[in-house]
Structures are given as C-alpha cells and as structure tokens.
C-alpha cells in the first residue's frame, strides 16, 4: 500500500531561535528522502516532532490523509513511524533478544521466530543471545532497525546513521535501506553528508536556519549545487581587521598529530598538520561532531596525543597538561561554558581561580589568597564589562553572555600569546556576540594568535585569516579567508575535496 506523509506548515519556536519556520514537505513511499542541512538548520527539530519527542507550536502532520496527534514517542510508534537515533537506546548488558522484548508485547519464543524471519529476509547476521556490548556499532544499529521493523513501520526515519559506521557497514546499511524502500517503507534520511545524499536518496530537501530552502530530485543535483544550497548565499564576506600585524613568526606548529580513541562515540584524529603565525587567527570550520572536541582537548592538554606532535614557539609541549601549557602563555576557552569552563555553583572569584598562573600567586604556599583572587576578579569584571561587580556572586546568576565574558576575561587578562577557543559565541545574544568578536579582533591586532574552532561560518569568515575544515577527524587544506566561498566550504564540510589549485 502506498504511504503518504505530509508535513504542513510546521513551526517550532524556542526563545531566541526559530528552529522550524513554516516547514511543509511531502513524502511518498517507494522513495528515499534526504533531509540535508548543517548544524542548527532544524533537521533534528523536525524529526523530533515527527517522532513525538517534542510538540510543534503550529502545523499539522498527515499520514495517508489522516491527521496525526503525536504527543509522545508512543503515539509515533502506534502510527507506524519508526525512528533510529544517532545514539542507540540499548541496554549494553542485556542480550539482543532481551532488548527487543522490552517494548514488545510478544512472548520471547514468538519474538524469536519473528526476529529470525527478519534476519533471514534481510541477511542480517546477529546472534540473538549475546549481550549488546559485544556487538559492533553497525550491529547495534541493526538491532535498533529490527526493533522498528517488528512494528511493521510505514515510515522509517534515520538520524545521521552513518556517523558511527565503518565504510563496509555504511554500504550494508544502504543496501538494506534500498530494500526497505522497495518494500514500500517510506524512508527519511537525515544527514549533512553530501555524497550519501547523491548515492542513496531519490529526493532531497535542504534546510537552512529552520526553513526548507529547496526540494529537488537528486539526479538533478551535484555535490557543488547541494553544497551551495546547504551553506547558502547569505555568506557575505565581512572584511575584517587589517592584518598588517601578521608576521612570519611561527607560534604553534602541529605536525603528524594522531589520536585514536577507545570511545566509539569519539572521533579519531588523523594526521593533523598546521602552523600558526603570530597575530594570526586560524579558523577551523566543520559540522559539529567531526573531531572538533577532540582537537580542542588535545591542543589544551586535556587529552595527551602522540609524542612531539605539538610545538609552541619551538618548544615541545605535547606531554604537558593544561596548567603547564598555561605557563607558556596559552589560554583556552572551551565550548561548554556551564560544565567545563566554569562551575555554576561556584562564586565568580572561585571560577577565576581555576586559571592559576604561577606568577598570579592565587595560592601562596598552598594557601588560598582570597584577597588577591578577588582583586584580580574585580579587574576582570570591569575590564571585560561583565554586568556585575560582585565577585561573591554565584556564577549561575550570570547570563550566558556575561559568563562567557568572564571566562574570556579570565583567559585574556594575563595577555596570552595564543588563545584557543571553541564556539565562543554559541547561544549568545547579538550584543554579547559583537562584544566577543571585537575582543577577539583586538587581541589579533595586539599581535596575539587565535585558533578559532567554530561551527558558525559567518563568525569564521569575519574573524579568520585562514580557514581549514575538519571532517571525520581530518583537516582539509588551509585556505585564505578571501578565497573561501560557500561552495568550497560546503564541499569540504560535507566530506568532499576541492581542487588542489
């Protein structure tokens, strides 16, 4: 039977951000649909609405012309909408069959027969009696898919399914998806990988800033046209500061940096090489979850990478921890303001004391010098226009922007040679963003260097002298900011390569 899914005028508004803006889409079974977009484009919000995890503010969803009320994931399941999330919802210590029986009303033996049938039909090879923790990521995903198939889905939504898969597993997955599609299951495939869209899907809807910007057949598209649509023409070059302070003096040299993680959800970094000059801002772009986190932690010393991979002013620093690196006048501003860069339940001056230089004497002979820390904190609050002068205030009462000013102030007040920051303006309002951008430009003008890891392309183009894109743990060729255009950026972010010339 033909399945038609219609999404009509869906809107979802969060404070300060329109996640879905009047989204209307039509899907029909027999085809595989791609939903393409970068971070924050609204893909996840839309599929969460489709799977009943969140409610939309406006709009309707029709399945075969029947209006759906999706108030919970159960409603979605009852209406034969299946969803496989990027992160698996499986109990690691339970067996495959036990996991499947959790949300099934069938008896174990009955279930085993049904599952075996599915295994045979799609040529899946999974032992039903081993615990989940013994399975590979691809096999775990198959368990999640089987869980959906058991409910005879009409619609199957896959959220970035290949991010944890190997190449072989990806190929297998695509074969299975095509099979499902032939059997009449409507498949919606969410991704930011351009190649996958072209090789797997029949139609592609591109989302940008909460809106659907294009719906087309994939055979009418190519990598560059999709890249253009994903990044958008809005990418206006804002000519920034004058970079006459740029010297040829080398500050940081990263060579042959490799990092292999034990955690399957972390990204391995492969052969990272770059140099950073004095007064330069190097931007690192990319879709989030492509190794930015790992790269930041390795540069800050939270993760120790391979030997002699990082040199700062020609001194080997690969083995130093963040505290020791700070003594070399490096400063770090992590992405996570609330649970890493600062602790909300601590007072402002205590959060300032986290960044403790030998020379700042916050702790004389091991004893807390509260007076010194407080004076230092007061200086940060006034120099970086944080809107309080009470150093005893708990940091949780600062707004995001003010907390970020405090953190940047803490890192910058000691005049570091190099600032490494990761999404410094994430989630802030326009005023705070402008302030922080100005501050970052100023420190470049003072001859200090910056590594700016960011998922905000406008920010990167505004601040960087050169830009590289990180994809699947690999850095692309570094391009001068003037030579960057939406097509190049989109291609690199989507895993493509650009011409060597």
């Amino acid at each position, binding site marked *: 039977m033909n399945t038609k899914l219609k999404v009509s005028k869906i809107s979802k508004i969060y404070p300060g951000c329109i996640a879905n803006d009047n989204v209307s889409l039509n899907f029909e079974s027999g085809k595989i649909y791609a939903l393409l977009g970068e971070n924050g484009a609204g893909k996840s919000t839309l599929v969460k609405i489709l799977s009943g995890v969140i409610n939309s503010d406006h709009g309707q969803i029709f399945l075969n012309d029947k209006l759906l009320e999706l108030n919970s994931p159960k409603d979605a399941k009852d209406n034969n909408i299946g969803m496989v999330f990027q992160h698996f919802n499986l109990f690691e210590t339970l067996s495959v069959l036990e996991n499947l029986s959790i949300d099934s009303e069938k008896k174990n033996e009955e279930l085993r027969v049904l599952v075996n049938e599915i295994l045979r039909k799609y040529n899946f090879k999974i032992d039903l009696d081993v615990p989940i923790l013994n399975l590979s990521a691809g096999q775990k995903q198959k368990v999640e898919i089987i869980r959906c198939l058991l409910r005879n889905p009409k619609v199957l939504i896959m959220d970035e399914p290949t991010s944890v898969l190997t190449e072989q597993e990806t190929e297998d997955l695509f074969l299975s998806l095509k099979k499902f599609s032939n059997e009449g299951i409507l498949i919606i495939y969410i991704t930011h990988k351009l190649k996958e869209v072209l090789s797997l899907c029949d139609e592609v809807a591109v989302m940008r800033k909460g809106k659907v910007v294009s719906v087309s057949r994939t055979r009418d598209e190519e990598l560059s046209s999709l890249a253009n649509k994903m990044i958008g023409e809005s990418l206006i070059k804002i000519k920034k500061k004058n970079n006459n302070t740029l010297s040829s003096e080398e500050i940081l040299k990263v060579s042959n940096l490799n990092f292999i993680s034990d955690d399957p959800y972390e990204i391995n970094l492969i052969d990272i090489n770059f140099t950073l000059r004095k007064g330069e801002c190097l931007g690192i772009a990319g879709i989030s979850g492509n190794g930015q986190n790992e790269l930041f932690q390795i540069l800050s010393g939270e993760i120790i990478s391979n030997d002699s991979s990082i040199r700062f002013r020609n001194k080997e620093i690969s083995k130093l*921890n963040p505290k020791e690196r700070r003594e070399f006048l490096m400063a770090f501003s992590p992405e996570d303001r609330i649970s890493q860069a600062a*602790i909300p339940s601590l007072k402002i001056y205590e959060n300032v004391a986290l960044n403790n230089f030998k020379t700042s004497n916050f702790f004389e002979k091991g004893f807390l010098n509260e007076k010194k820390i407080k004076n230092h904190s007061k200086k940060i609050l006034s120099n970086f226009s944080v809107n309080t002068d009470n150093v005893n205030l*708990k940091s949780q009462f600062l707004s995001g922007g003010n907390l970020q000013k405090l953190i940047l102030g803490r890192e910058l007040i000691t005049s570091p040679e190099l600032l490494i920051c990761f999404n410094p303006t994430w989630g802030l309002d326009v005023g705070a963003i402008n302030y922080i951008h100005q501050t970052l430009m100023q420190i470049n003008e003072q001859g200090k260097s910056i590594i700016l890891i960011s998922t905000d392309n406008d920010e990167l183009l505004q601040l960087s002298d050169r830009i590289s894109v990180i994809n699947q743990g690999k850095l692309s060729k570094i391009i001068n900011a003037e030579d960057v255009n939406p097509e190049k950026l989109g291609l690199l972010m989507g895993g493509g390569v650009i011409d060597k010339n």
Partner: protein
Amino acid sequence: MIKIEKRNEAPNSIYFLTPVLAIFLTLISGALIFFILGFKPLEALKFFFITPISDLYGLSELLIKATPLCLIAIGLSFCFKSNNWNIGAEGQLTFGGIVGGGVALLFYNHDGFYVLPSIILAGAIGGMVFAMIPAILKVYFNTNEILVSLMLVYVSKLLLDYLVVGPWSNPEGFNFPETRQFSESARLPILIEGLRIHAGIFIALISVFLAWIVLYKTYLGFQIKVSGLSLKTAKYAGYKGKTMILLVFMVSGACAGLAGVGEITGPIGQLHRMISPDYGFTAIIVAFLGRLNPIGIVFASLIVALTYLGAETAQIFLQVPKYTGQVFQGMILFFLLASDFLIFFKIKFLGFKKYEY
C-alpha cells in the same frame, strides 16, 4: 493542594535544615516502630535517646563512641567531596588496628615515651597503606573503588581473625581469640578518673581542625572541591587527577587507621575479633549527615553515637535486640537522602482553593 516546583537555587539554610528534618522523621518512625512492638513510644524513645546520656558516665561513653565515627567521617569527607567512593573505611580501620596492635605487642612490657606514638603512627600508616590498594587499582587499572574497598573489608577482618586465634593469641589466654592486654605505656591516657574517656578525642578534634583548614583554605581543598563538582572542569584546569585520588584515599585511610588504633589503645586495650561495631560503615552515614563539613560531622557523630548507646540501653530495659541501633542509623540515612529532594525542589502549599486545570 500541594504543588512541587523545581528550585532555581537552594537557600544555604536548607543544607542544615534537611539533616534536622531527617532526624525528626527518624524519631517519629522510631516511635511508630516501638508502638507496633507494643511499647509506649515516648517512653521507649526516652530510653533510647535520653537515659543513656543522663549522667557523666553516659556522656563519656557518648564521646568514646563519637570519637572514631568523627575521625573516620572526616577522612571520608575528603574522598566523597572529590567523587571517590571509599566504602571500605571499616577495613582500613581494622588494618590500622592490626598494624598498631602488632607494634603494641612488639613493645609488650616496654616502658617509654616512644611506645604510644609509634603505635599510633603505625596504625595511621596501616590504614593508609590499606586504602592505597583500591586507590592504586582505580588509578592504574580503572577498577571500581566501591567494590574493591568494600571487599577488602572482609580481607582485613579475616586477617584479624586469623591473627587473634593463631600467631598473636595470648599464650596465657586459654585459647580465647584475643591477644595479650597491652602494657600501660601502650594505652591512651584516661582523661577523667573513673570514666573511660581517653585522649583519643584530641586526635579527633585536631583532625577536624586540620580538615577544615585544608578543605576551605588551601589549594588542595579547592582542587578537591572543583573535582567533586565537575571532573571535566578539573581536567580543563589541569589538576593532576591521579595524584589527587591517591591523596584523598591516603587521608581517608590514615583517619580510619587512627580510629582503629584509638579503639585498641583506648577502651579495648588488646586485639580481638570485635574491635569495631562497624564504625567504618556507620561513619559513611555520619559523613553525609554532617554534609561533608567538618563542623557538621562533629554534631553528626554525636547523634549517631547516641544510637549505639540507645540500642544498648534499650536492650537492657526493653529487651529489644541491640541491632535496633542499626535500624535507627539506617532510617537516618534513608530520611536524609529522601529529604535531599527538598534541595532541588520546593513544595508549595496552594491552600484548598478550587484547583484550575
């Protein structure tokens, strides 16, 4: 109608009021239990909580019981504050007792100022070494310190068992499972003639003072606090996580070892099977009841010590088993954890007005 709301921020007072509430609820439930058992609830509670400390002897016994609880809980607060779950203080106490006791037996019939200090030092080192086992395994082999420290409790208890029936048993002891009585020089001095209260209380008080200084006034204390609140932040700040784990376990083990040696050189005066009525486990309750704050722990140790005494009195006067004490200890922890709900949520009484849906 009652409405439960999430708090934006808990007022500081709630951290002191919830333990009081927990004790209050424990008393009510205790009264109920006594009532069901057929006793007059108020009278039973009086036997339990008032009679034991109504004379000087009782007060001295209270302090004797509170001393080890306080010492161990102070040590545990270092671990718990930094997110290290040392559950094996009982084992560290026992091992400290064994090592201290061994030195005491070595100096049997020795007279000299050095005897007692070396026993105390040996006890502290013993506890410290024993606590290092789960710490080292955690740091270098990523084992779970809860399981390892807990299992080591039984190792040390069985070792003590073996020693007191085997090699260290009293040659003139008619095969009773105990060692010789230690010499006078190996005993902590009695503070008041006729009572059992001994100088161990000073060790506890000094440790309270030192813990307060370290936790609130030093860089180390700051690092412990930060690590406990967010390991991610501690890593970002560049604190040496492994060194800190080893250190807090050392402090904790040393305190438990001191408590053990304080028992055998104080009220007991020899080694036998029962050198501790599970002080090491009960101290976990003390540490949390005192909110991991040194001053709070002093008060909490007195309250929990009272449940030990009350259980003994109740056994004599009401003929209920002395394990009733453990019931009360369990209830205190239970209600404390339950009332911690109030830290994160507040209950609003909206009156009995018509509720609008």
